């Protein structure tokens, strides 16, 4: 699996891996060109500190994986960064601008678009309408213009075309007229991702995009995510499947109990004792990926092993 995906690395993928090559593998390390820069973000629920991140940066143009055991605080961290939840303290910049306290819809407009771990397909809208909602800057969304179709029908047609393109990429083209509520769980995940892409985000944040997607489709999705990167979009995703993280991640950030405990390229991170401890407890004799390749990848950075 790793063989063909690594070898299929496009120019942007190579560039971002090269850019990250000299970043030290320590939590909170500075990136050459951060799109997201987070400082001391803290969020507690009653007595429980769900997120307590000292410092973390996300490299522009790269695919960054955010991993960690259940309850580590990954989703909460996503909610905070995208403005869906408010931190107790902390600030962060997106594209160099302070965005703490910015309304979530404004962040989305600025190009920071997220998906949800529990999918939010709009059930009683068609798949196509779901997609069209993702498009930005629609004239017809203004209440006065809405009454005059000639003001927006051309834009609508263009959006429709684009939506169809994306839908066929995600194997949903023949579903476009169906209600989104009639899709399977995996298809909803795909729809949500495609919908997020409708807005041409600068940074797309995917919360477990592969959960419930069948393995055959996972492969093509991995390609899609790499394509997204090749088109210049930064990807930050949460995932539990280590093989997938390994396949497409340029960089991995590990969270446990609300804190960033490790960072680095996939191979190095999965060998990190702290990470293995966080996932498996201190007594273990297992490996994090099914094939165990993470433990050998460093000796073979080109990924030409099997």
């Amino acid at each position: 699996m790793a063989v063909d995906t690594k070898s299929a690395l496009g120019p942007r993928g190579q560039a971002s891996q090269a850019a990250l090559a000299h970043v030290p593998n320590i939590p909170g390390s500075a990136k050459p060109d951060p799109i997201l820069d987070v400082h001391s973000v803290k969020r507690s629920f009653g007595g429980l500190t769900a997120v307590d991140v000292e410092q973390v940066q996300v490299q522009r143009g790269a695919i960054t994986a955010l991993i960690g055991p259940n309850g580590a605080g990954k989703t909460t961290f996503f909610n905070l960064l995208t403005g869906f939840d408010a931190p107790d303290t902390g600030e962060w910049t997106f594209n160099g601008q302070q965005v703490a306290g910015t309304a979530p819809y404004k962040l989305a407009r600025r190009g920071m678009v997220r998906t949800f771990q529990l999918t939010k397909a709009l059930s009683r809208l068609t798949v196509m309408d779901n997609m069209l909602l993702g498009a930005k800057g629609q004239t017809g969304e203004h209440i006065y213009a809405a009454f005059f179709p000639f003001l927006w029908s051309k834009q609508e047609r263009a959006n429709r075309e684009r939506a169809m393109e994306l839908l066929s990429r995600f194997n949903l083209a023949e579903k476009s007229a169906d209600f989104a509520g009639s899709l399977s769980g995996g298809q909803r995940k795909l729809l949500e991702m495609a919908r997020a892409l409708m807005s041409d985000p600068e940074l797309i944040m995917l919360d477990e995009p592969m959960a419930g997607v069948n393995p055959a489709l996972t492969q093509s999705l991995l390609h899609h995510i790499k394509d997204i990167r090749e088109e210049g979009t930064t990807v930050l995703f949460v995932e539990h499947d280590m093989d997938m993280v390994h396949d497409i991640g340029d960089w991995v950030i590990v969270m446990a109990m609300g804190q960033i405990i490790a960072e680095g390229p996939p191979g190095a991170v999965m060998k990190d004792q702290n990470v293995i401890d966080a996932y498996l407890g201190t007594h273990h004799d297992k490996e994090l990926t099914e094939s165990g390749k993470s433990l050998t990848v460093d000796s073979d950075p080109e990924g030409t092993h099997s």
Partner: protein
Amino acid sequence: MDIGFVLAQSITQALGVTAIIYCLAAIGLNIQFGYTGLLNFGQVAFVTVGAYSIGVVVVTMGLSLWLAIPIALLASVILALILGIPTLRLRADYLAIVTIAASELLRLVVRSIALRDIFGGVNGINGKIGEQFHALNPLPAEFVTPYLTFSRQDAWVVLVGWVIIAIISFGVWLLVRSPWGRVVRGIREDEYAVVSLGKNVFVYKMQALILGGMVGAMGGIIWAIAKQSVQPDTFVPDVTFFTYTILLLGGAARIFGPIVGAILFWFLLAGVGEFLSQAIQAGWIDFLKPTDVGPIRFILVGIGLMSLMIFRPQGIFGDKRELALDGR
């Protein structure tokens, strides 16, 4: 028993002023609840504001009806802002609580003794409220509605009323099939998903509340003009619940839902009532008194509506497939 008369009475009611008022209230509620998913349990408040604004401006202040109508619509916008600003950022149920409370509060304010000089207390406002409108009646003085039993004055109101409904329905149709309509339907399904796509959900909800409120107020305006009287105790929460019944009967989130719902609701209510009265008079039913007809017809219509909800829960115009989906 005169079946022809029962039918004529029922159709008169089905197309009459009351049906028009409820139809407008239901069109407004359809924008708010049917399309946007806003749980407005105080639609009667907008009808009240519409009717009382007309009464106060025309009778209390002695100004023109043509000035009163825009003032009434403006007042409904202000009410929507007052209700919406504190609640639309919160969960859906808050709006429900606030609107039902506000509608009762409003009724208690207009019937209060302290403000009797403005709103007329329990007697409400009576007088030549709709005179300027009725003066424009083009129907000949000796006009008799064929078959139906409208007075000349009511026939004029009904004519204008249905034209207004047609215009508003056309506007709603334009709106909901536009990208704006797509956003509000998205909000009905899951507002966080819509936020994540960069839409200012609060603004859309506010717009829907205002628009729906204005259409509801239009119902109140017609009420005041047609009945030439505004009584506080007609604006009880029942009005809101009848409006919901009408909307669900016709089918929520359907352009023709409120229209068909209102016509059918008043047809059934009047038809059952008239039929019972006639049957009692004719001696067919001897265990009921004529005074029982009022409550009994509500019971019968209620049972009918319950069966409809069981056997056709999507309403007359609704799409069954939509209900099968797990709406979250």
